[in-house]
Structure formats: structure tokens, C-alpha cells
């Protein structure tokens, strides 16, 4: 070792390698993006956003597949995707893994999205519809186009949920550039996607919204549910601003689109 270093060529190589190692982290770390500010000095997340991926079809990576309604052909086929789960696989407990499989097999009958029920969190974020963030100091409202669903994120001292609900109970805080939202008190009736990924009423979600450019956010959700998963797990994806000048959420009161499915068999028979 000592002899090596006495060799001038090797010594200089070693110094260069050390320097490179020292410099590497600095070169790999792009400086964090500093978002534009709202009037109160907080990062400004106001806007209409949308996920552009197939997460609602299946959070895990999946190949393309025939859709469930043959008469719709390619229109309603399952698009392929690499998945948004960190580590690729959701860590189900064995019993829960069996239930997930059963859910997937009976997707059309069981998925609350099909019935236009409130989608829960984080699913509301990556449904294939836009949502709008309206940011004030005391609270942040998020309106989701799907089913006219809404959440109010409390930004003051954390409060306790009055009861379980579809969209959960959201307490938010700022960590530097990131909006962190702690969501609890869910009912057990929402799913994560059309592949039957599910949770219990012990679900606890921590979301992180971090601006990564003027028109993109990074979205992360850590999902914890000891009744269903062996470990907490995480999804992440970019969200894109709907930059159209006249972008608006429009009415998508989907309850009326699910009525034939829910009540069609009770229609009066015509003679």
C-alpha cells in the first residue's frame, strides 16, 4: 500500500479518484427547485393538476391487457405501465394478498370507482381526471373533477377527525418546499386502483407535494395499514399542470352514469 502511493502516477490517480468521489454527490444533486410564492410566502401550489400515467389501472407495473368490456375493443383496453410503487411490489400480508386477487377477478362488480363512489386518497390524485388546488393560509381545498369530490386540508393546529369518511381527515404542514399532508380516519370502502389493490380502516397516508418546476409537482404517498400490509410502502409520480389558458374543472357528476348499473334491473318491465 505504502509502496503504491510512493509511485507518483498511482498517487496522483488516487488523489484524482478521491477528488472525484468528493465532487460526485455535489454534481449529482441538482439544487432543489424553489417554487414561486403565494402572497403569504409559502410555495404556490394553486392550479389545476393531473397525473399522466396508468396508476389508476394498476399501481404495480403491468403489461397491456384486453379490457373487461369486449364490445369496446381497444378503447377500454388496459394500457401498459412500469408502475409507481417504489420497489415495484406492494407488501401484502398473505390473507390480504388473496383478497386483492379476488377483488381483481371481480373488478367490475366491486370497484367503487365503477359506482362513482368518492375515490379516497391517494387514488383521487391519479384518477384520469384533473383536480384543482386552492391554497389559502388556514386551509387548502382540493376539488377533484371525478364525482365533484372535495377535501379540505387543515393547515392550522392539527385537528381530530369527527368520524371515518371516504376522503379521510387531512392535516397539512409545510416542510420547506413541500406540502406534507397526514391523512387518517378513512372508511374501508375505497380502493387504490382498478386492479383491486385495497386497504382497511386502519389506513394512514402521508402525502408529499413538492414543486419540481413551474408546471410540475412531485407527488409521493406513503401508505401504512398494519391490517393489510407487512410494511409501509410508497408511490411516487409527477403531476402536470393543465396549462391551457382556459383550463377549468367541469361538472362530472358521475352518480348518474352509474345508475343503470346500480338500478337498471329494477326498471319497470315493458310488456
Amino acid at each position, binding site marked *: 500500500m505504502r509502496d503504491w502511493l510512493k509511485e507518483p502516477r498511482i498517487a496522483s490517480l488516487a488523489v484524482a479518484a478521491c477528488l472525484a468521489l468528493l465532487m460526485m454527490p455535489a454534481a449529482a444533486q441538482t439544487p432543489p427547485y424553489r417554487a414561486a410564492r403565494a402572497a403569504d410566502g409559502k410555495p404556490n401550489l*394553486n392550479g389545476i393538476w393531473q397525473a399522466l400515467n396508468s396508476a389508476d389501472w394498476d399501481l404495480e407495473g403491468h403489461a397491456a391487457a384486453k379490457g373487461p368490456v369486449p364490445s369496446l375493443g381497444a378503447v377500454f383496453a388496459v394500457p401498459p405501465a412500469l408502475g409507481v410503487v417504489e420497489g415495484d411490489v406492494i407488501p401484502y400480508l398473505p390473507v390480504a394478498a388473496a383478497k386483492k386477487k379476488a377483488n381483481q377477478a371481480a373488478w367490475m362488480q366491486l370497484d367503487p370507482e365503477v359506482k362513482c363512489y368518492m375515490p379516497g386518497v391517494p387514488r383521487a390524485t391519479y384518477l384520469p381526471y384533473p383536480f384543482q388546488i*386552492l391554497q389559502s393560509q388556514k*386551509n387548502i*381545498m382540493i376539488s377533484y373533477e371525478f364525482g*365533484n369530490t372535495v377535501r379540505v386540508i387543515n393547515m392550522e393546529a392539527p385537528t381530530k377527525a369527527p368520524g371515518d369518511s371516504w376522503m379521510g381527515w387531512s392535516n397539512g404542514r409545510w416542510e420547506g418546499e413541500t406540502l406534507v399532508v397526514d391523512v387518517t380516519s378513512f372508511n374501508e370502502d375505497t380502493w387504490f386502483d382498478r386492479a383491486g389493490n385495497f386497504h382497511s380502516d386502519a389506513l394512514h397516508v402521508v402525502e408529499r407535494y413538492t414543486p419540481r418546476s413551474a408546471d410540475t409537482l412531485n407527488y409521493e404517498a406513503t401508505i401504512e395499514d398494519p391490517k393489510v400490509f407487512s410494511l409501509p410502502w410508497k408511490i411516487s409520480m409527477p403531476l402536470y399542470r393543465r396549462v391551457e389558458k382556459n383550463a377549468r374543472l367541469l361538472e362530472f357528476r358521475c352518480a348518474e352514469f*352509474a345508475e343503470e348499473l346500480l338500478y337498471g334491473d*329494477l326498471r*319497470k318491465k315493458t310488456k
Partner: protein
Amino acid sequence: MNYRLLASTALAAVVLVLLLAKGSVGQTAPAAAKPGKAWTPPRTPDGQPDLQGIWNNSTITPLERPKGLGAKEFYTEQEFVELAKRVRQGDVGKEADLGAANPQALRYDLSLYGFDVTKTSFASNRRTSLIVGPEGVVPPMLPEARKRNADRAAKNKGHEFDSYENRPLQERCILMGQERIPMLPAAGEGNLLQITQGQGWIGLLHETNHDTRFIPTDGRPHIPQNIRQYQGDSVGHWEGNTLVIDTTNFTDLVPFRGSGEKLHLVERFSRIADDTILYRFTVEDPTTWDRPWTVEIPMSQAKGPIYEWGCHEGNTMISTILRGARVQEEEAAQKSGK
């Protein structure tokens, strides 16, 4: 400019403020400014008047003026105190002179849910009806509107239980009474409205059926006329301290007091005290009424939070009603078959 009109409007405004200051009752009585001392609304960090919070439009005032009051637009202070006292005692009378506190207007036995009408909180400006002006009633419907509404009712007659499509939107959780705009007070439930202000937008969350309107205030025009929505299309702007929201693009599927799709709604939100917003709206529809009419409702600040209002998710009403109808038909068929 008509200075006389301006002067009388200004005078009316002063009178109104005085009435509001004195006429309020209830747990959330608005602490309006003392005469002579101007009250200035708080501002958001970006300088807008701050309307944020949770507001309750509960009232004991009926939409239309009770017969017998003629052109009397306001109760005297003494009359109003007595009226409020009767409500507090639970003595709300049989005639519909107490608006939402009238037991006939209630859908539920509120005592079952731990509510107590004598503890209802409400703000009032001593009006005898929510509709302003000497008439105090909805203008008569034009003949064409009468026909339109009669035709609609006739078309559904005898088919009320055929299918979900024949049931009211309210039952189907598509658009509920307190959810639809303009927002009128209901009988002691679902009366809350949460207002949040973001950059260039106003968020209005109705407690009833979690209806949410995000309204731009950046001067953009309405969406194209060919896109019609149950709640129309709303754009807003500020006139001084008042938020003005203009809504068009309604459908003809949800008549408001008989209106058609030409309904044009202008809503005004003015914070007139720390704990009071004056909500005033004007509706016009040349296919329904020969003149616009205006309603004024003081909304008192409420503590909150607003609970999530699921409706469709737990709706067993439609399937129960339709199943009942099918069973009855089956039974009738069996009987006549014998």
C-alpha cells in the same frame, strides 16, 4: 348618473346596516358596526376582502312574505323580538310565517338527532320575507313557463316509479335542494357553506352533498354556451368589498322556482361584520318571469368543521322505491290473473 337614485340607495344601505345591527338575534348575532363607525372587512395576504370561513344560512324568515303583511318589508324591533322569542320557545305557529323553523318544513324529527329548534342559530335583518321589495313574493310565472312546467309534470305522471330516471334529482343524489344554486336555507340541516380564497379563485364548498364550486375571478369569460351544466358556469369579480358571481349555462333539467335554461343568476357576498356575510342574489329568466327578483339572506359564522356529506355512496332510497313498485306490480298481476 341618477343622483336621486344614488342618494336613496345610499340611504337604504345605511338603514339596512342599522337594521342588521339591531335586528340580529341568536347565538351568532352579528356584531355590526355601531352607527357612525365604519367597519372594514379583514383582508387576505393578497389584498382581497377576506370572506373565508364557514357560514350558516339558517333563518326563521320565509322566502315569500306571509299573506296579511301586505307591503310591510321589515318587522319593527319589538315585533321581531317577540317573533324570535316564540321560536326560542318552540312555539313556531301553524302558518308558514317562520320559514325554515316551521315544523311542517322539516323532513326529520330533529329531536331524534339531538337537534333543538329552540337553539337554532340564525342571523336576521328583520325582513318579513327573504325576497326583497314591496311585493315580497316570486313574480307570477309567464304562460309559456307555466306550460313548460305543466308539460314536464304531465310527462312523468303515472310513471313516477318506472325507473330511476323518473325520480327527482334530489333522491338520486345528483343535485340536492341545498346544494343547488342559488343557495336557499333549508329546514335546519345542510346549511353550511365554506369559503376559501386562493390566487385568482374562490372556493365555495356546500355542506350538502359536498358540492364544490371553484370560481375564477381573473376576468375570463363564461365557457361556451353549448356546454350546459346543472350548476351552470360561474365567473366572479370584486366590486369594492363585494364578491359578485355571475352564472349562466344552466340546463333545463333543474328548474329553480320554475326557471328554464335561460336562468341568469347574480350572487353577491358582502362581509358586513366579523361574523356575518350578507348573501344577496338576483335571478332573471325572460322565459319564466317578466322581471328579475332578488333575495337577501344574512349568513352567520359557524364553528365547523363541515363533515363529509356522502349521499350517493349510501343511497338505498332509489332501489328500495323501485323494488317496492315492482313487488306491487307483481302482486297486482297475480291478483288479476286469478
